[in-house]
């Protein structure tokens, strides 16, 4: 496991250095860096060292450190991504399991067809449709924003659901309700793609597990289908798909950034778009570096977590190298 851990950390470090190198080259082209007579490698090393220390420069528009702005905007985006992933597991696991169990059955075809439709719909269009119908026509959900602005929710962790704990007890409930109602629509839209991914991968994985001999043995022992799935199949079918779901994080984060503009969600996507409009190159570079680093870290952490709970994964990786 230690060897595996070191391999993954190596991957993390190398990818991080490559991303920094790309950012460094762009920075040289944009003349953002003070030109010195130092050898480029020394400048690059300094650049990486500054980034590791959270010194991403100062925004040319707001005059504030880019790192501070990232820290204040990133939690809102992460909250949205976590909620979307949670929803995708809640919907995707039962449907994926069902599609996996009923292999070569109309149920599987139906589920996978719906999944394909969901996967093909552009998120911003779906978002607009939902806003038009469920917000403007039916009035079920707020159109945009993160919570009712008249409710004063302190910014402690940046995660609204957590920050309501710092409110007075009688104010917590309305604040939480407000946050959840604002979270509903963007979460629903953002969850579409990871849900389809969970369903697709889990159904394949489940179908594979269901054809294994130990499942057949369990069936001959007289266990019901429900018992076989919950006791044996599911916790063997789930771990193999985790790394590819970890890779989905990058996708979800990108989509979240698009949706933030549609739902006026005060996260890093909206911040980046406004930085692009204002040609704030330092903020754009800092934001991109942070997002890229976050995606790699998530991927490596998911991989390590999978290896921890699913030893077979380690063997697969060794076999690849």
């Amino acid at each position: 496991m230690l060897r595996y851990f070191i391999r993954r950390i190596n991957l993390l470090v190398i990818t991080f250095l490559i991303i920094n190198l790309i950012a460094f080259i762009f920075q040289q082209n944009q003349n953002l860096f003070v030109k010195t007579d130092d050898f480029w490698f020394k400048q690059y090393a300094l650049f990486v060292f500054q980034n590791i220390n959270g010194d991403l420069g100062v925004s040319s528009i707001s005059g504030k450190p880019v790192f501070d702005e990232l820290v204040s905007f990133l939690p809102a985006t992460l909250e949205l991504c976590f909620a979307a992933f949670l929803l995708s597991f809640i919907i995707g696991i039962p449907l994926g399991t069902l599609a996996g169990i009923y292999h070569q059955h109309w149920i599987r075809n139906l589920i996978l067809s719906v999944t394909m439709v969901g996967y093909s719909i552009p998120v911003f269009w779906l978002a607009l449709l939902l806003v038009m119908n469920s917000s403007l026509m039916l009035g079920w959900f707020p159109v945009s924003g993160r919570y009712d602005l008249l409710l004063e929710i302190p910014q402690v962790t940046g995660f609204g659901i957590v920050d309501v704990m710092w409110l007075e007890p009688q104010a917590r409930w309305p604040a939480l309700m407000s946050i959840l109602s604002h979270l509903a629509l963007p979460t629903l839209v953002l969850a579409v793609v990871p849900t389809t991914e969970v369903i697709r991968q889990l159904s394949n994985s489940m179908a594979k597990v269901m054809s294994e001999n130990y499942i057949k043995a369990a069936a001959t022992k007289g266990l019901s289908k429900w018992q076989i799935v919950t006791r044996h199949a599911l916790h063997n079918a789930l771990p193999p798909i985790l790394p590819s779901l970890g890779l989905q994080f990058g996708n979800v984060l990108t989509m979240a950034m698009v949706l933030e503009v549609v739902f006026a969600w005060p996260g890093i996507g909206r911040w980046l778009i406004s930085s692009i409009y204002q040609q704030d190159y330092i903020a754009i570079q800092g934001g991109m570096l942070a997002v890229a680093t976050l995606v790699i870290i998530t991927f490596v952490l998911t991989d390590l977590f999978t290896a921890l709970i699913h030893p077979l994964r380690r063997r697969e990786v060794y076999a690849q190298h």
Partner: protein
Amino acid sequence: MNAFSIGTVMCLAFLLLGCDQQKDVKKLGLVYCTETAPHTFNPQLESSINAIAVTSRHLYDRLVEVDPITQQLVGGVANNWQVSEDGLRYRFDLRQGIHFHKTDYFSPSRNLNADDVILSFERILDTEHPLYILANGDYPFFNNIGFGSNIRKLTKLSESAVEFELKRPDAAFLANLASDYAVILSAEYADKLSQSNQLGQLDQLPIGSGPFYYVNQRKDHFIRYYRHWLHWRGAPPMQQLVFDITPTSSIRLAKLLTGQCDIMAQPAANQLEVLKAREELLVSVQAGLNVSYLAFNTQKPPFADVRIRRNVAGLVNKQRIVDSVYLSTADIAEGVLSPSSWAYRHQSRSPEQDHLVYPYIEKAKQDPIELWVLNEAKSYNPQPRKTAELIRNDLVNGGYQVNVRLLDWQVLRRYLRAPEVNYDLLLVGWSTDNSDPDDFFRQQFSCDAVEQGYNFSRWCNGHFEQLLNAATASTRLADRVRNYYKIQKIIEQDVPILPLTHALKMYSYNDSVHGITWNPYGGVSFNNAYRK
């Protein structure tokens, strides 16, 4: 009663409690959906009138104010003022008992006095002042009107009296002091920040004496104010005022329809039908003291040549812009001034067009023209991009090649301050800051404004400058009107800009909100707003 029932009752009680709590908060607060966030909380440093509407009237007081109904000057921080016979000395007697804001970051130990007035203007006038240096001398409004160059001395006469001594008479002086930019800051707060070496905070964490005080903000998301209980005119009825920054007008409309906003700034003309269909929503419409125009870069060929400017001006179909962009919620502009201004001179015809094909026009058509346009709506133009496309179409039909480039306001400001600017045409406009015509002309056409980047045509004319100064040197209305007529004639002949429209100023709000004051020279005031 079993555990499930108890749980259900508790949940329902919680829900009802939550609803009550939310209703209370709603009743005592207002949410105003606006389009622009200010980049500073000190209006002295701000250039966008939309952004100033968020800060100035709510956070600060001025020496004098303009009554929104009678348009007459009334007392603000100064309850009395005298002007010397030669029009060179203005003495202001200050009101007693004006309290500054008490916030988490500052507790005032004294009331507003002459020191505060001195600091507020000295930072603009004294180039050695630490605050002048801090702001890099960038006071858009004051620099454009040449405020500093006309003040000989600013004197503290007593704790409650100050005197401005001018170099030459200025009929627009009081109107300028009543503008949204001429706010009174706290000298005590500045001292405290200076001692702790945090002077930069003065313009970002504001302390004023206005009806609301700053609580917190999230960049490009919202700004929160609380009522100032000790305001000298009495505390505002609303406990909380929130500015929801929503640049897209369709989202602002959606928020108004779903009750997330109580008031919406600048609905687009094509949204009026939707607003009229909802009984609970009202629309306030005012004649706009604004103008949208196409500025020619007169310092750069081909538009350095007045004949090319006339040719292009004659090609633009203004009526089509009014019909397509404003849906008839604007008037065609014949000149710079709005027809409601007392100095307005009726102009019977559009700039003369050269119909003949001259070699210089043919030459101008060979190279593509750069048309720059803002990517955000302004009070004078709700859809700049669409307007630019219509203009482009007209010019292309006239044989020109046009490239349209969209720019953010902050980015455009950066470019405009550069010594050389690459645009040929710039689609912009102006909303007046006060009732005096000097505000329109000096800020957009004076030679000082070229350097400041607000003279968008970069046109500097010596005769025009003389007339501009002559117009403010006299307090006789007839003299002033005569000079402004001449000024308008020069602009008409030299065509540094092509005036396009005077837009109506519109707001929409929920009928449960009362007491909003729409200021014709700036934004909106919620000082007396309440909810029924």
